[in-house]
């Protein structure tokens, strides 16, 4: 009994640094955020306790719901693209031959560029007058005249999706490749002896065995998309007519441009709740499938 208690204390000491870190840098700031959300605090100082008024206001804030709707649409579009394309690329570059290794490096390269930098790059690539993207499309006769990508919310959305896909698809691909390469070669060889086709190996061996990696990439991609900011800030500035404002962009605007820290904090708490719920549902569903 005593030794059991002692080992518990030793265990606690081992996790203490991590516990202190989490308390100081996650729980305490989150508590501060929740408290701020209950005040009318301004970036210029002042503010009083207002209870749930900020949450009530968020409920009636049409711009917030529009931003949330756009963010959800962006997430729903980009997540399957990143997953599907990442998987496809992973299958293509899976063998450890020189050309595949080189391809992996090339596809992964944009991941090391900052998102802000790549957004600036694509902003100019999409430019109507000097942009290379339009020129290529015109030369390939896909379009007749250069398109002004950022004048329509739909086109702007696709422009951002294209730029972000280029930037991050390599990350998912690398995780998928790592997941596939960790599958025991005996399993793959046994399936080959059994005479399985490539499609059968893909659907019956690779995909089920990397389900946890798929879950991880989906989570990273979905959470990242729900928190999208830089790419929209730089490429569309929320336009046209505020139709490409994301939730985080709207939080930023309220907190730091319009100085309403209390209201911005309330919006942040709501967004945190939405992401937590979404993640929990996703985890439960995927875990259930993984155990089936």
């Amino acid at each position, binding site marked *: 009994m005593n030794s059991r208690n002692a080992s518990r204390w030793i265990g606690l000491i081992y996790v203490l640094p991590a516990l202190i870190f989490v308390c100081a840098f996650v729980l305490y700031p989150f508590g501060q955020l929740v408290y701020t959300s209950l005040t009318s605090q*301004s*970036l*210029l100082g002042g503010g009083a306790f207002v209870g749930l008024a900020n949450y009530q206001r968020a409920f009636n804030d049409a711009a917030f719901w529009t931003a949330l709707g756009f963010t959800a649409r962006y997430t729903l579009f980009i997540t399957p693209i990143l997953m599907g394309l990442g998987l496809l690329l992973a299958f293509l570059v899976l063998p450890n031959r020189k050309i595949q290794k080189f391809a992996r490096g090339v596809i992964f390269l944009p991941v090391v560029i900052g998102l802000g930098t790549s957004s600036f790059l694509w902003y100019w690539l999409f430019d109507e007058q000097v942009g290379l993207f339009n020129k290529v499309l015109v030369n390939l006769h896909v379009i007749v005249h250069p398109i002004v990508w950022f*004048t329509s919310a739909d086109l702007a959305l696709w422009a951002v999706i294209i730029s972000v896909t280029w930037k991050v698809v390599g990350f998912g691909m690398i995780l998928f490749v790592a997941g596939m390469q960790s599958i025991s070669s005996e399993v793959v060889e046994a399936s080959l002896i059994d005479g399985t086709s490539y499609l059968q190996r893909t659907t019956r061996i690779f995909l089920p065995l990397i389900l946890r990696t798929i879950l991880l990439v989906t989570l990273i991609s979905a959470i990242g998309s729900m928190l999208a900011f830089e790419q929209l800030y730089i490429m569309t500035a929320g*336009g046209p007519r505020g139709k490409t*404002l994301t939730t985080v962009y709207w939080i930023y605007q309220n907190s730091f*441009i319009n100085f309403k820290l209390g209201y911005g904090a309330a919006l942040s708490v709501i967004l945190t709740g939405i992401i937590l719920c979404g993640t929990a549902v996703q985890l439960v569903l995927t875990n259930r499938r993984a155990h089936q």
Partner: protein
Amino acid sequence: MKLSIRSSAFALALTTSTILGYSAASAADLSMWVRASGAGAAQHLVDLWNTGHADKKIAVTVIPDNQMVTKLATGSQAGDVPDLVSFDLIYMPDFMKAGFLTDLTADLKGDANYASVAEAYKNIATYEGKIYGAGFTPDVSILVWNKDLFKKAGLDPEKGPTTLAEIHADATKIRALGGDTYGYYFSGSCPGCNIFVTSPMMVAAGAKILPAKADDTPLDGDGVKAVLTEMQAMWKEGLVPASAQADNGANFVAAFMSGNVGIEGSGGFLISLLKEKAPNLNFGVTILPGIKEGQQSAFVGGDVVAIPKGSKQADVAKEFIHWELTDEAQLEGLAKNNIIPSRPALADNKYFKAEPRVVVTAKALGVGYVPWVFHFNDMVNSDSSPWIQMLQTAIFDGDVDGAITKARESMKSIVAQ
């Protein structure tokens, strides 16, 4: 062991020298935050000051435009502020009200040079009868036209448009040149650019744009509708490049600099910029017109200089503010570099004689306006502000009346908060 002692001694020496070096530098130099778009002009003044004040040098830190307000607000809250700050004058009301700035009333009231500073700068830096700053690196909106395109289009290259209808007529003729040549340009997704160059045309036509108090009517007067209607017509007729709709300010300068745009609202800063970057571009400068002959206005912009509360060298900072208003600083620091002085009386100087276009900007300063309002960001500068929503809905969607009504309501509710 010997190595360890030697290493420790070296590390200690290095640390000590770094600390001493840092404190020596910070004790000698005044720190000054400058907003990026005013950094060039500010540096001219600071360089001149540093030449004559070796023991009171100023070290400039350039802050990106869109981060300046946030950084200053958070710095003030945290008590970590520079000795001097130069920022967009439009934010003075918010910062004065917040109590972030040092009261300079006693220092500047008796300063004869301060008395001759442009009224717009004095008004914007005064709150409840107290003075909190002075004009520093002025700028003002103007209208520029491409003389070569005017000539090609059969227009008088020496005569700029004097009414909005004339802008429209001239733009039509220039667009008729065809190809990539357009008559008029504005950054359609840039709220700040448009308050700078589009709102003065409304003000010139008698409109009042922003409400100072809750019971003021925003966007009041026929000028708002007249200007939006004319701009909507120019857009519909294809006199403005399609890319203007999505321009968030990135092409505010580049469009005219390309030589393919006939007329554009811009700022006084463009003169020296074009002379340096596009020396072959033949352009004229005039004051932004209204809807009738003789109506003129401008948006007085640029930066003010102030001393944040908590400045560690407030006395030297005050000395600098007195100095930057002297003839020496205004002429040798600003005018010499084609920048208008904040004291309009100094516009008639030897440097501007060689560049009459700068004199036009100095005149624009005299007829210009700057709105003294709180919540400027909310109403105008944010990417989803009522101001930019109104412009876009009216010009690109064609619903002028609906756009004005909606923006008016939004602005009223912002001021009422």
